[in-house]
């Protein structure tokens, strides 16, 4: 009798699980970093997609979106807008794609990004390092420092998070990647934290600034500050762009020409 009842209860539990359709039936901690196979190596997969859309034309556009945190409705609105714009060929995220560095946040971001019709790449932000975010980012996306080329332009994505990562930015790696800048029409560097922001001390700021100006970098792109700013910060040829967070649905479109670029700030209706 008891056995029959127990079996019925187990059946009931099975039915509940079936109907609820949990993405993951059992979760053990918000801090776990067990990334599903289908979510892994996103950077590598997207660089392959970008390589497939290379053209010979000088002029092209890409979108720069940053500091997603948990503003998922706005992320969806931005993606829908980017999907409608045929001139945008790919999207770069400037970091803080998670808020607490939790696996759940990374999964939500990934699942929303499935709706984007274009390739996208990310640079790691300070919030992405929190909890076990460092491990999750590495599995889900790939290396913290990497680069790609597009139509003879070089894009370098650089991890300059200091406090949350407990690391010193790998300026040697950056210097090495910038050393062949004369082979490219233009060089763009993307790092979450601008050199004139809170985390980089004066030595780091000086190192970063010198690497940009000595290696013919046209544009250094950042997030973190949550405000829009586009200017030549130091007395050199390098432009620094800080894009706003998506707390309001805003993003930047960078149009690249043969020897120059232009920036459009897109503000969508909330």
């Amino acid at each position, binding site marked *: 009798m008891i056995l029959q009842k127990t079996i019925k209860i187990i059946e009931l539990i099975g039915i*509940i699980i079936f109907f609820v359709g949990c993405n993951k039936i059992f979760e053990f*901690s918000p801090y776990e970093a067990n990334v599903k196979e289908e979510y892994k190596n996103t950077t590598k997969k997207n660089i392959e997609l970008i390589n497939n859309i290379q053209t010979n034309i000088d002029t092209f556009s890409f979108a720069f979106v940053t500091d997603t945190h948990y503003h*998922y*409705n706005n992320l969806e609105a931005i993606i829908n807008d980017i999907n409608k714009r045929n001139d945008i060929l790919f999207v770069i995220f400037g970091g803080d794609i998670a808020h607490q560095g939790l696996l759940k946040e990374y999964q939500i971001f990934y699942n929303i990004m499935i709706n984007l019709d274009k390739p996208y790449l990310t640079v790691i932000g300070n919030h992405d390092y929190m909890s076990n975010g460092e491990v999750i980012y590495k599995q889900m996306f790939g290396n913290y420092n990497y680069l790609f080329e597009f139509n003879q332009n070089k894009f370098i994505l650089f991890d300059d998070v200091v406090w949350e990562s407990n690391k010193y930015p790998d300026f040697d790696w950056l210097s090495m990647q910038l050393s062949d800048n004369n082979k490219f029409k233009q060089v763009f560097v993307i790092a979450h934290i601008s050199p004139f922001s809170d985390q980089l001390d004066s030595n780091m700021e000086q190192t970063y600034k010198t690497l940009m100006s000595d290696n013919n970098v046209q544009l250094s792109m950042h997030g973190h500050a949550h405000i829009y700013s586009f200017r030549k910060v130091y007395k050199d040829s390098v432009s620094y762009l800080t894009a706003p967070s998506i707390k309001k649905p805003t993003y930047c479109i960078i149009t690249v020409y043969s020897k120059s670029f232009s920036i459009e700030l897109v503000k969508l209706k909330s």
Partner: protein
Amino acid sequence: MKKINIHILLAILAFSYNVFARDTSLIKTKNWYPDYTKIQFAGNIGFLSIGLGYQFFNNRLYSEILYGYVPVSISRAQKIHIITIKNTFPIINKNIKEIIISPITGFTASFETGNNSFLKLPDKYPKGYLITNAFHLTLFLGAKVHKNFIYPKIIKGADLYFELGTVESYVLYAFLSKEVRINQILSSAIGINLYY
């Protein structure tokens, strides 16, 4: 004489032990003697969590303090050690012959440090830069089946329970965003309470 005194003392001790052992309410007021042991699988408080529980307010509240553990093979990062206070409220108790079935609800409050999480903001950060990320709450709904054993020796009865739950941050994300669906934030837990 001394021998007789020792025997009397032992007899009194044995008698008092029996009195206390039979009257659980007396034991509870005299000691921190728990009512039951809980063992739970999953539920965002550990791969396995184990701890001691108390019944309060005529069995309307079940409170436990639990230690949860997630090994490296499961977390895929560092070992995770979690201290949890769990509170469960049976909504109604339905007697069906020898068993009692209860829909349950409740919440947990968990504390964890060691996975780039902190209670006190480390000195490297400016004051007020971040708030603690060492605490998480979970909320759950579920069902519990209780059975008293007919010939109890150590274990007088047991609960088997199942829960569907989520974490407070996930609820916030689902509330703020239509992109986060309810099935993305729910997960299950199962466990037993052993009464003594």
